[in-house]
């Protein structure tokens, strides 16, 4: 809940006070010139009634905040406001009447006060409606403002993520090394060279045609990643094995396009690349309480002193998941006994 803007914002408070002074003056003038009440009684009348209301009016803010559409259905809010308008107006009239009748003992004025109560009640309810209307407008405006800010933030995030994924799209190292492998294979095994060229082309096509906002079935994503892994296998010989443990009912699940690619790249880079021994890369997927849980693990060398570039890929994935599902907690990592594991949770469509 926000702080009452009429108290926090000096300018608003000034306008609010001036309006009440104006209303009090108008009321006093009406009493003097139209009702012919004595001057000092009229001034007291204006000050007591309106001064009291101006304080009460400040408290409406909390009521309005409490009665937001997020908490209650509309009819309930209207009922609440009718009730509180009645209670506040009654209290206000009773309190003002009590004060005035104690400081003024002029029967003529008191009769006028009794007779005008109904008008004053109407005015009280009017004031109530106007003040809560203004409060609602302020809340609406503030929320709108926040929303605009949030959207701007999101847009920046999208841009950043896109930029980073562009970097991912074309990883020059991977491309040139693969081309070098192809060049080498043309000398030793032309058949294999052709196979690799085709795989590399298919993989690059898949990567270049990706769209930030598109989802793919897990099956398609895994096929593309397998192309990548096949290429890397040619490069690294038998330095790693790839194992897939994927429940059949997961393969149709939708995941953001190219989301898994950086994970595989990470596993190759930090697992296979930094190790002289053989590495097992294992992908598991299963359904788990409304999520598609995808885990990728690889054994790594706990002794290896990390180089730069760790964490960028994971951060990028986190950002993309946030953009897609508006949730920051869809990725987790853990390291234990020389195994590094990334878990991704994709919310299932209802």
């Amino acid at each position: 809940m926000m702080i009452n803007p009429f108290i926090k914002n000096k300018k608003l408070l000034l306008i609010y006070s001036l309006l009440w002074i104006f209303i009090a003056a108008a009321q006093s003038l009406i009493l003097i010139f139209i009702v012919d009440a004595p001057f000092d009684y009229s001034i007291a009348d204006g000050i007591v009634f309106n001064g009291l209301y101006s304080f009460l009016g400040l408290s409406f803010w909390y009521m309005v905040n409490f009665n937001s559409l997020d908490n209650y259905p509309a009819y309930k809010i209207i009922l609440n406001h009718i009730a509180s308008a009645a209670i506040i107006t009654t209290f206000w009239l009773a309190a003002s009447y009590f004060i005035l009748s104690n400081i003024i003992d002029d029967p003529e004025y008191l009769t006028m006060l009794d007779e005008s109560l109904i008008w004053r009640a109407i005015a009280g309810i009017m004031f109530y409606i106007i003040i809560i209307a203004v409060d609602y407008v302020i809340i609406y405006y503030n929320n709108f403002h926040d929303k605009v800010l949030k959207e701007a933030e999101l847009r920046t995030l999208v841009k950043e993520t896109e930029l980073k994924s562009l970097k991912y799209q074309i990883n020059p190292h991977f491309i040139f090394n693969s081309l070098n492998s192809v060049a080498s294979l043309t000398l030793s095994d032309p058949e294999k060279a052709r196979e690799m060229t085709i795989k590399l082309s298919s993989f690059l096509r898949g990567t270049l045609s990706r769209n930030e906002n598109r989802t793919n079935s897990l099956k398609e994503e895994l096929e593309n990643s397998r192309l990548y892994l096949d290429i890397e296998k040619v490069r690294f010989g038998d330095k790693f094995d790839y194992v897939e443990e994927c429940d059949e009912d997961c393969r149709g699940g939708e995941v953001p396009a190219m989301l898994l690619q950086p994970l595989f790249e990470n596993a190759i880079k930090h697992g296979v690349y930094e190790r002289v021994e053989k590495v097992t890369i294992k992908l598991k997927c299963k359904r788990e309480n409304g999520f598609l849980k995808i885990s990728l693990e690889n054994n790594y060398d706990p002794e290896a002193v990390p180089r730069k570039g760790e964490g960028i890929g994971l951060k990028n994935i986190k950002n993309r998941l946030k953009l897609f599902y508006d949730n920051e907690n869809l990725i987790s990592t853990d390291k234990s006994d020389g195994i590094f594991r990334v878990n991704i949770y994709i919310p299932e469509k209802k």
Partner: protein
Amino acid sequence: MKKIKTLIVDDEKLAREVVSRYLSEYDEFEIAGECSNGFEAIKLINEIKPDLIFLDVQMPKITGFEMLELIDEPPAIIFTTAFDQYAIKAFEVNAIDYLLKPFSEERFKDALDKAKLSIGNKSDLRDKLNKLKETDREKGERLERVVVKHNNNILIISVDEINYIEAQDDYVMLHTARGNFLKQKTMKWFEKNLDPENFIRLHRSYITRLDAVKQLELFEKESYRAILKDGAKIPVSKSGYQKLKEIMNG
């Protein structure tokens, strides 16, 4: 005519194959060995003392550059790399040649011709190797680890382990909890390439990791010493004291 002993160092078998195939066309070169990582390579280099190395920059465990830092006798080096802007800058000045993968046979022949001219000119090779060792990181890129030789083992030390660095003639001594290691680099190089947020040069002969400093004490009048958490006492020069004061008050 003695053949030119050549070593091929690359973590990818196919990449090594290209070099060995191309090289088999030339009678004056012989392949003395192939290695798939820097550790093996260093062992082999010390053993067979090759005249020429084809060296891949990006390798597991330690990079081609880190590997070079541990070689004493300078062979001629031709770098091979897929894509590495920073390395290329370094080669242009100080390497005999570098080959961008994939490379053609003509380009390969050029590199061999250049190598032939250099082999035998030991002082020039040593000069080049030393300059390569002193290559600075790319702008904004900080030194994160240092490889050292220790009783015939190669250790990789994260800079976070270094408590302080001490100048010793042509070398520097890295003081860590794991022990003290000599490294053939200059103080200037370390000062330039370490993250200035974490390391400070307190004295002409000392660089200290800020987190390792426990307190400053007045040593004689007008001069201070830094007491480190591991108990080491390090002299602090006037300018070092000023730097430290700025950090403390900043």
